[in-house]
């Protein structure tokens, strides 16, 4: 292990270090920051940030609860896999799903897990920024 660590190129150490520091933010602030703004895609997760459109966020119904929980699952997936592994892996799965089923959800295990847990989890955000 010592030999392996000493032999690692500096740029790889830097990448691992940044990835771990980024991952630490997912655990120290254990929920995504919700940005409510006009957004054509409804809701999307970007690591620690979830962007959601007011037409979803401002209506208190089961759809809002589901969407927030769904995006929270993506946040948890990233905190588990770390951003630099989760990002590329998600992209590969989305690409596969697009080829296999014609969209990025149906054959994408990340999305299927988020869809599955979207109905089971409750996520009440505390960090909400409105633009």
């Amino acid at each position, binding site marked *: *292990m*010592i*030999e*392996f*660590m*000493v032999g690692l190129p500096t740029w790889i*150490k*830097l990448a*691992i*270090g*940044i*990835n*771990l*520091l*980024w*991952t*630490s*933010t*997912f*655990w*120290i602030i*254990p929920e995504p920051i919700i940005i409510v703004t006009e957004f054509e895609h409804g809701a999307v997760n970007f690591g620690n940030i979830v962007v959601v459109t007011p037409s979803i966020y401002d209506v208190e119904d089961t759809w809002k609860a589901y969407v927030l929980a769904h995006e*929270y*699952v993506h946040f*948890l*997936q990233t*905190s*588990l896999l770390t951003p630099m592994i989760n990002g590329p892996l998600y992209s590969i799965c989305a690409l596969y799903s697009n080829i296999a089923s014609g969209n990025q959800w149906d054959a994408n295990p990340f999305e299927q*897990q988020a869809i599955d*847990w979207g109905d*089971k*989890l409750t996520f009440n955000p505390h960090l909400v920024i409105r633009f």
Partner: protein
Amino acid sequence: MIGFIASLPLLVKLIVGINYAFAGYMYIAPPVIIVADIEQEAINIAPIIVIDTEVFYSDKFDNVLRVEYGKYLQSAYYTPVGRFIISLLADGWQMLFNTDNFLLKDIYDNIDILAPPKIIIIGDLKFPYIRGIL
């Protein structure tokens, strides 16, 4: 797994986060070296290495620093909490089977390739509270 992670208490998540933060720092930056009067030759707490003043001024310093740097690299690799748990296992294994401590053996086997790091020395300071803890 998702349900389990979501249900973890805040304190546990905080510990995991700080553990990752330390490990991340340890990949990027050198250890913080503190020279202080302590009972052991040196101790290693996440990114901080405390070296005894007497050792600091002795011929042993280079060797002690290499060993502590080896532990620092192990802590980055396994994360600080991970290395602590593995070190307990290594100690137990050593006592049960009367063998070398595999973590320390890895360091001593590679002592020559462990270049003393570019260090930040906060010293020759006195930290009575550190001695108090120990």
